[in-house]
């Protein structure tokens, strides 16, 4: 069963998957020390529940999460908490995060697990997944509960992503070919949970063993195994959805907007184990590969296991190691040390030699050859984006749909000038995000300022009003009984009359106008003797000023008249 749909672009890098597929999945021995970062997902770190010196059991929650914000982590084995503090974690930035250090007691004694009750509602099931720390295991680490809840109604199609398109990575392939029954169980659990009309599993055609195993396991379940052509990045969520349904996820939207839910196959297995057994995510399968390893393969290890422990297990030859990459060669990032813990999103670790991953050549100028454009799976114009990004014209890049870039790195791979294009796009996105944040803050500040200003003006006016009222009251008290009536009347009249200039202003205006007339008369007299050509103009000016004086005098006399009549 092939696919009828396609996405644009894509590349065919050497897949280098065989190296890690020679042996079945191995279990890593328990390490003596484990380091569990609080944040292994998209979001904030959870709230720590344990203290230094506490003894914890396998599967016991170490932190508490808040749905939509943070996801809890669990003790990967039984032991004692020896420290809680910052430690370097696998992240492109090399940042430190709060980690919980556990000294394993070697007994691996499990805490009591609570499966999800059979009569639990959908929402309760989602929360159960959250409590057991389920996040997307394909690499993004998006909290599974939040993703499931993003669909306001039941999706039409549930897609399990088993494409695994990036070179070197075989963790999902190993899982599918060796444990097809648990993958299908996971698919059924998810399918039942979200109630989709259709459940598809998408796999690239370079994994015939996995396809065969899943087909057999899926027999009679209604789950369809859909084989897609091998082409990077067919495993990108949007690309796989496009391949299987022909639909495009709207820009800035979610798959839920077109009635699709996409989950990685390993995540599906975790969902099943969470619901059925109450088991939290404390281990995962990770591909260890690269020429610097003598025993490459897929290793199932506890979260928090130090990477050097696992690299030793995979037979690392430190003299051969040139680059250590977490994730794949296209979307992964370099690690500078091996003392980092295994985290939930670590699907692959490549220990490459210098021949395998030579240092990239010095970038040359972009010659607009357009190879990147032919490779882009989203139909962007990467060379234009690069042009804008490198010139600091980030808004133009945004106008050219920078934020639709999925950062797959296909353009980097084809670029004949060896330009790190995706780095430019990430930088540009960062600048724009920062700018938007600052803009939002500025807007907020301005709004607050304007509100304060309005409030102060209002208060000022109220004070003024009170002052006037007090003054009036004082005046009334001072000018005894007979004047009081008149005073009251005056007050009433002035309140009723339209607000106009008072008498002082009128007098001032009249005086100013008179002065102007006098000045104009003097100028005219002077001009009559010295510059006759200016006379007509000055005469006109004098007439104007005279008229104004008349008007001012009339206004003043009217005002006097009115005051007298009161």
């Amino acid at each position: 069963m092939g696919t009828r749909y396609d996405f644009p672009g894509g590349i065919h890098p050497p897949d280098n998957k065989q190296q890690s597929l020679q042996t079945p999945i191995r279990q890593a021995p328990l390490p003596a020390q484990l380091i569990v970062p609080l944040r292994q997902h998209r979001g904030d770190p959870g709230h720590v529940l344990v203290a230094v010196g506490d003894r914890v059991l396998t599967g016991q929650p170490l932190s508490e999460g808040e749905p939509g914000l943070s996801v809890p982590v669990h003790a990967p084995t039984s032991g004692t908490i020896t420290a809680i503090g910052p430690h370097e974690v696998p992240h492109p930035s090399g940042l430190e995060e709060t980690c919980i250090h556990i000294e394993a007691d070697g007994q691996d004694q499990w805490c009591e697990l609570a499966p999800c009750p059979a009569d639990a509602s959908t929402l309760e099931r989602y929360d159960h997944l959250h409590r057991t720390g389920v996040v997307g295991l394909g690499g993004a680490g998006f909290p599974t509960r939040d993703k499931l809840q993003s669909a306001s109604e039941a999706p039409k199609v549930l897609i399990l992503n088993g494409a695994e398109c990036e070179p070197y990575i075989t963790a999902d392939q190993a899982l599918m070919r060796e444990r097809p029954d648990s993958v299908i169980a996971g698919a059924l659990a998810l399918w039942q949970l979200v109630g989709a009309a259709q459940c598809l599993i998408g796999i690239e055609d370079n994994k015939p063993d996995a396809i065969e195993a899943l087909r057999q396991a899926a027999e009679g379940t209604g789950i369809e195994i859909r084989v897609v052509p091998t082409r990077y990045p067919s495993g990108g969520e949007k690309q796989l959805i496009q391949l299987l349904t022909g639909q495009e996820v709207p820009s800035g939207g979610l798959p839920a907007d077109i009635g699709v839910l996409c989950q990685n196959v390993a995540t599906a297995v975790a969902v099943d184990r969470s619901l059925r057994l109450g088991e939290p995510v404390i281990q995962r399968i990770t591909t260890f590969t690269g020429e610097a390893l003598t025993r490459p393969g897929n290793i199932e290890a506890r979260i928090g296991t130090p990477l050097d422990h696992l690299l030793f297990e995979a037979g690392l030859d430190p003299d051969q190691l040139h680059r250590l990459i977490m994730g794949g060669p296209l979307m992964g990032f370099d690690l500078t040390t091996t003392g980092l813990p295994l985290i939930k999103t670590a699907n692959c670790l490549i220990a490459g030699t210098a021949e395998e991953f030579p240092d990239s050549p010095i970038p040359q100028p972009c010659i607009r050859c357009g190879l990147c454009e032919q490779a882009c799976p989203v139909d962007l114009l990467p060379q234009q984006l690069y042009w804008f990004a490198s010139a600091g014209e980030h808004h133009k890049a945004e106008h050219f749909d920078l934020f639709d870039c999925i950062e797959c790195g296909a353009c980097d791979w084809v670029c004949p000038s060896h330009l790190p294009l995706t780095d430019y796009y990430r930088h540009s996105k960062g600048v724009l995000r920062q700018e938007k944040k600052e803009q939002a803050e500025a807007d907020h500040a301005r709004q607050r300022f304007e509100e304060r200003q309005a409030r102060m003006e209002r208060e000022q006016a109220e004070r003024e009003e009170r002052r006037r009222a007090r003054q009036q009251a004082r005046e009334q008290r001072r000018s005894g009984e007979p004047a009081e009536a008149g005073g009251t009347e005056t007050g009433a009249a002035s309140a009723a009359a339209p607000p106009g200039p008072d008498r002082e202003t009128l007098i001032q205006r009249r005086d100013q106008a008179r002065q102007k007339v006098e000045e104009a008369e003097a100028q005219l007299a002077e001009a009559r003797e010295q510059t006759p050509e200016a006379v007509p103009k000055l005469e006109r000016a004098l007439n104007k000023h005279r008229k104004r004086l008349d008007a001012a005098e009339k206004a003043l006399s009217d005002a006097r008249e009115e005051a007298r009549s009161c």
Partner: protein
Amino acid sequence: MLTSQRIMLWVMAATLPGLLALIHFFGWGVLISVLWCMGVAMATEALILWIRARPVQRTLMDGSAALTGLLLGLSLPPLLPWWIALVATASAIILAKHLYGGLGSNLFNPAMVGYALVLVSFPEAMTTRWALPLSLQETPLGLLDSLSVFTGLGSASVDAFTGATPLDDYKHAIDGAVASQVTAAPIYGDRIALGWEWVNLGFLAGGLLLIQRRIITWHIPVSLLGALTFMALLFGYDPDQSVPLGLHLLAGGTMFGAFFIATDPVSAATSNRGKLWYGAGIGVLLYTIRAWGSYPDAVAFAVLLMNLAVPFLDYYTRPRTRGHQRAGRGVPS
């Protein structure tokens, strides 16, 4: 994996069939011209890089200057005096390339800027000095004679070896004759245009190789040749009145222009739709200038004029980004 250097080398290699055909039919002058232009281009590039304090050797290795020289050498008449070729090549590298910022930053095709500059400056030498096919020369010009003409030393007179190209000749001769009379002249040979047809087929073959190697895409050549064909059929359907389609396609620099000049990525449109418009524009201009202008071949002017339109085309022919309803347009100021 393609590198910029390899792209340049592939393009150079793809000119070989055309180059060999040119040498075969028009003599050693072509090779001398090509080598001279390549040498001047690289020397000029090295000088400018040195002045601009850029890495000289590494940048020269990218092959872009050598390619510019090669393309110019292929475009210029083979028996042109050395100093005109020098002016053309040095201007291409200095004015058209480095004054804009070097490789990748030029708005205009450097080779065509050099060509157009000498075409308007030395029109006589540029339009009348095309070598006659060797078989039509009374005593075919040898290597030494070619060098002598090229350097201006020695006694070889150039007039005996040169003449108008078929494209030029037909345009003027058809005014007072019918097609069969015009094409009876020996420069038309037995088929379309003696020698030229093979030269054009050579460049066509090289161009197809570039498409097969994915160094260029089909968009520009196809739309260019399509537009030229359309114009020639629409306005020049009568061979007794105007130059026929066969000559347009196979007698001048058409194939060379379509596959090697118009496809220069730096100065061409980049989106697939943009490339179609760009190529079609060149095709229309090519016919317009040839039929109603005063230049017999018009690749240089057609390409340069469309170079001007490239930023506009790039902004208004964006593909539809996946996830969007329709393609974005324009650019914010």
